[in-house]
């Protein structure tokens, strides 16, 4: 069984935010109204975090890092769910069952990475958006929690395709949208347990760190950076 994980090389990342956009479109993540966004209800599965600032005024530059659900190996979100609407699959992906979630938002309160988002309203997309609606991903109803799934639907499709072509699943068959779109190839994705995969090679870099390692949630999203945090 593979153990899917991700490595984001911050030294390569030029902070363009393409992954954020790609994620939003790929997963039909709701675009909320301006007022709601100002209230702090903007919905992102992947977002750029303003972590620090470099340089002295006026030559300052914000340092952003792309952040998503860390797909923890010891996820604190699934522990508290009263109805098992969020759970860890055998391949390590922490998935969400939308029709089961009762919307108590307990998992959100217990995610140390603030990675989950809630559907405060019914999904009402601007009409322009209909053209880029992804039919492979279900639209979430109001009142449930959602988060990054490592584009689990892509895995499903890749598996079906491999089966139809009567072959094993290859490494490049399945990558999430953010990985595919990254122009500077800063994001690696694949099976962490496979010693030959690109991601596991990247993971063994000396620059590796994870966010809030001390909590013991064992994130499967690693970062690489020569500058220490």
């Amino acid at each position, binding site marked *: 069984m593979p153990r899917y994980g991700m490595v984001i090389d911050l030294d390569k990342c030029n902070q363009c935010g393409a992954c954020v956009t790609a994620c939003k479109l790929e997963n039909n993540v709701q675009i909320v109204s301006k007022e*709601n966004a100002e*209230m*702090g*209800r*903007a919905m992102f599965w992947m977002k750029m*975090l*303003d*972590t620090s600032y470099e340089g002295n005024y006026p030559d300052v530059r914000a340092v952003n890092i792309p*952040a998503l659900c860390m797909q923890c190996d010891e996820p*604190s979100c699934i*522990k*508290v*769910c*009263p*109805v*098992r*609407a969020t759970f860890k699959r055998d391949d390590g992906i922490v998935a969400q069952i939308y029709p*089961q*979630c*009762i*919307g*108590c*938002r*307990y998992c*959100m*309160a*217990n995610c*140390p*990475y*603030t990675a989950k*988002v*809630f*559907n*405060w*309203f*019914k999904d009402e997309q601007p009409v322009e958006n209909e053209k880029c609606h992804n039919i492979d991903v279900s639209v979430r*109803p*109001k*009142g*449930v*929690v959602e988060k990054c799934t490592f584009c689990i639907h892509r895995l499903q499709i890749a598996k079906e395709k491999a089966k139809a072509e009567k072959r094993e699943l290859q490494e490049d068959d399945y990558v999430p949208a953010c990985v595919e779109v990254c122009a500077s190839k800063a994001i690696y994705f694949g099976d962490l347990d496979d010693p030959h995969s690109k991601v596991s090679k990247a993971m063994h870099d000396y620059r590796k760190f994870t*966010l*809030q390692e001390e*909590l013991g949630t064992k994130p499967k999203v690693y970062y690489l950076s020569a500058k220490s945090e």
Partner: protein
Amino acid sequence: MDDHHYIDEDEVLFRPIYQTSKSFYVLAAALIAVFLFGAAMYVRQFIFGLGETGMNEPVTWGFYIISFVFFIGISHAGTLISAILRLSKAEWRRPITRMAEVITGIVLMIGGLHPIIDLGRPDRILHIFERGRLQSPLLWDMTSITAYFTASTIYLYLPLIPDIALLRDRGGKFHKLYEILSWGYQGTERQKHVLEKAINILMVMVIPIAISVHTVISWIFSMTLQPGWHSTIFGPYFVVGAIFSGIAALIIVMIVFRKVFHFEDYLKKIHFNYLGTLLLVMSLLWFYFTFAEYLTTFYGHEPSEMRVFLYKFVGGYAPFFWLMVFCNFIVPVVFLSNKKLKTIPGILIASIAVVIGMWLERLIIVVPSLANPRLPFITGIYVPSLTEISLLAAATAAFILGFMGFSKLFPLISIWEIKEGREESVRMVSERLNEYLPSKGHIRKEIV
């Protein structure tokens, strides 16, 4: 004949059931209006989604969870206090227990409803039964609240039976209802004995259940990794806070009904004096816990904990925090430790301050931790919306309405216990006293 004589004696206690003043209807109408407005707002929220509230990304819990913790806390007034007083055979409990138990019943219903109001998908509430995970603190919570509600309603109902029988024997209004509810109670020796036994069993059972309820509620918070929540003393801290706010609510209710229904002869200064002292003790205990909790946080100086700490002490929530300290500690201590100020109005002021302060405490616990999550780059603010405020008002209105409704059906002071007290207290207490006083004869013999 004899019975008739006694009924006359306690006529004041029956009067609210049979006489209703005009202002009662006016007040009831106003409260029903408030309640209906809240209900309408909830329907709106149900249709359009939780976006109608002021909750947002990191602050995903707001007024509803605060009210939930607060109201369940108040519920400790009742059963716990009445059970402890009964258990310790405190004679002054007699006119108090009933009101305390009624508070529990009403407030548990209101508080227990709040998590459901808070759900994004209340239509899926049955999933908890179908696919509930017992590992989730929310499930523990549901279990313990249901147990508490069941136990405390029975505990309210059992001591009510003799009074219902009295009402039945009087005839008149709601005769049929009383006949059913009194279960054929005639006050025979055997019936009395069985009833007493049942009450005794329940009051012992109710105490651990009550404590477990608020401990489990605190665990909802302390089981998470959130800074400011992940604390081992949350269990006892919440229980202390719950009893604290419960006593305050009880005092307020007693003072109000004493005035409205002229219970001055039953609820005397001494009752308020004792309860006031209890409130003072709880206030000191509350301060001790609060102090210990924040001192450890401050001394440890963990960055994520400190952000929450500073948010409360000097940041956005500082006004609420210091108001809470003022209401929960300074006001009660000043009013209750000073003989001159410890009058009934003084005790009332202290109690009102405590109820407000304890509500603020719940606010201080829920919001700042969520607004300052561990990942330091995301922070939030929380401003409640009209929906949330009107639902809080509706919950308060429901509480008062519940009490008003109860007062029209059943006596607010346990009549049979008062009678029993009048007839037997003196004898029982002196017997008990004699049991543990050293006998004189014994001493004399030794000397000789």
